[in-house]
């Protein structure tokens, strides 16, 4: 079962990973975007973890996801702020009032996040965006609901991430490059990979 303290750990771990890979994300974004992805996410996640109340056990998952979403919306800026923010706000909706969710529910939560990204960004799977991590992961978890190996999920995530390299960007700043976007990883897909690697590691340590 997944509860609030997992989410808090998850986001803290994500923050650490993003801060550590800020320069790499910057370089990826410089290649097919404007170079701010790492900086924006680091700043926004910093705000998100500051925002989480020290006594988070009083809150339900819906409230925590909402807080994270609002912090990201207000502090990341750019495309990814709106998108990650929308994802978490959508995730908050399906968790409303819940203090605990099952693994099956987690798949639905991530699916809800993907819907948030789709709705806000009008992107489809294959457009070379962060959605190319979110949607496949939701599908994968839905399929493997009986028994999940977090290591396998990590492997799956990295495969999905690598796949964005060969795609032509259809949404976001990289889309202006058209076919010249091929050969580069999508920065948002990479940061989303880190986000979910952090989730895997958190849950691997013990749900």
């Amino acid at each position, binding site marked *: 079962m997944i509860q609030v303290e997992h989410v808090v750990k998850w986001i803290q771990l994500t923050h650490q990973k993003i801060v550590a890979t800020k320069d790499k994300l910057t370089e990826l974004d410089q290649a097919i975007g404007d170079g701010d992805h790492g900086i924006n996410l680091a700043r926004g996640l910093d705000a998100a973890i500051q925002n989480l109340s020290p006594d988070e056990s009083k809150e339900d998952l819906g409230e925590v996801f909402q807080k994270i979403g609002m912090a990201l919306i*207000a502090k990341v800026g750019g495309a990814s702020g709106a998108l990650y923010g929308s994802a978490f706000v959508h995730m908050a909706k399906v968790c409303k009032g819940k203090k605990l969710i099952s693994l099956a529910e987690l798949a639905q939560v991530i699916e809800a996040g993907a819907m948030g990204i789709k709705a806000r960004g009008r992107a489809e799977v294959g457009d070379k965006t962060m959605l190319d991590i979110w949607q496949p992961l939701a599908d994968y978890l839905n399929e493997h609901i009986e028994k999940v190996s977090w290591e396998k999920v990590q492997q799956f995530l990295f495969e999905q991430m690598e796949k964005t390299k060969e795609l032509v960007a*259809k949404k976001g700043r990289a889309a202006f490059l058209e076919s010249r976007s091929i050969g580069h990883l999508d920065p948002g897909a990479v940061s989303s990979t880190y986000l979910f690697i952090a989730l895997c590691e958190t849950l691997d340590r013990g749900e």
Partner: protein
Amino acid sequence: MKKLINHPDYVVQEMIEGMALAHPQIIRKLNDTNILVRTDLNNAKVALVSGGGSGHEPAHGGFVGTGMLDAAVAGEVFTSPTPDQILEAIKAVDRGKGVLLIIKNYSGDVMNFEMAMELAEAEGILVEKVVVDDDVAVKNSTYTVGRRGIAGTIFVHKIAGALAEQGASLDEVKQIADRVILQTKSMGMALSSCIIPAVGKPGFELPEDEMEMGMGIHGEPGIERKKVVSADEVASVLVSHLQKEMPLAANDRVAVMVNGLGATPMMELYIVSRKVSQLLQESKIQVHRTFVGEYMTSLEMAGCSVTFLKLDNVLAELLDQPAQTIAW
């Protein structure tokens, strides 16, 4: 990276403070935000709000004032401002006649402004938006995100701002803004890239003998990298791209903007604008006015963009209306 700054994290805030301190007659800063609003908000009129990432100064704060924008929201460098900030700007300048958002066509900007619009509508404020996509360097396709918004945005601010000042309705102001957008085409080129303060290294590296055609104003790569050619050739290439997208015939009337991207001396801008003027003269196109200078920059990027706005009598008349801003 050599910059006249204090700390990369505070460049936007300090710049906005500096602008407000320098021009209290024209603008003021909303407390605890990076929003600049005009001081004379008495006149009940449709309000215009624009903004976007910082690093494009004087856009957009430099165009806040009587006859142009009512508020400009500044995001972090090259990063769209967030919905809460945009919402605050909307609320600060709405005088009951509605608010028009002027957005440059970047996913981040569009999404954040749309979110703010939803929030404002939820609070009962009448809001409309227009999205500027003047950059012909990018192919126009309904399958993708379309074109970027660059220097032509300033013409939208000016003309929509003039009409709003005359008391037009939100619909009318939105319509004229859309008309300007339809008739405005731009394209740029760079001799060097720019450095986001928090990143500390350039967005792309250009060898000493190369230039980038059609790059974006955020250091995004362009459409083609070429050996550096003469100013006349640069002007000709840019003009021919614009002409291809918006063919101009003899006796058509245009406003021209030769916009410096940040580090290009005015001497060079005028050498480029000379050729642009000559090409238009040769085609017997009437130039109503030419604007040469820095309007939509890209930090310390060297290079320029050329914008054509095809005018009719109404647009020309509005373009010529006075405006009290820092940079118009």
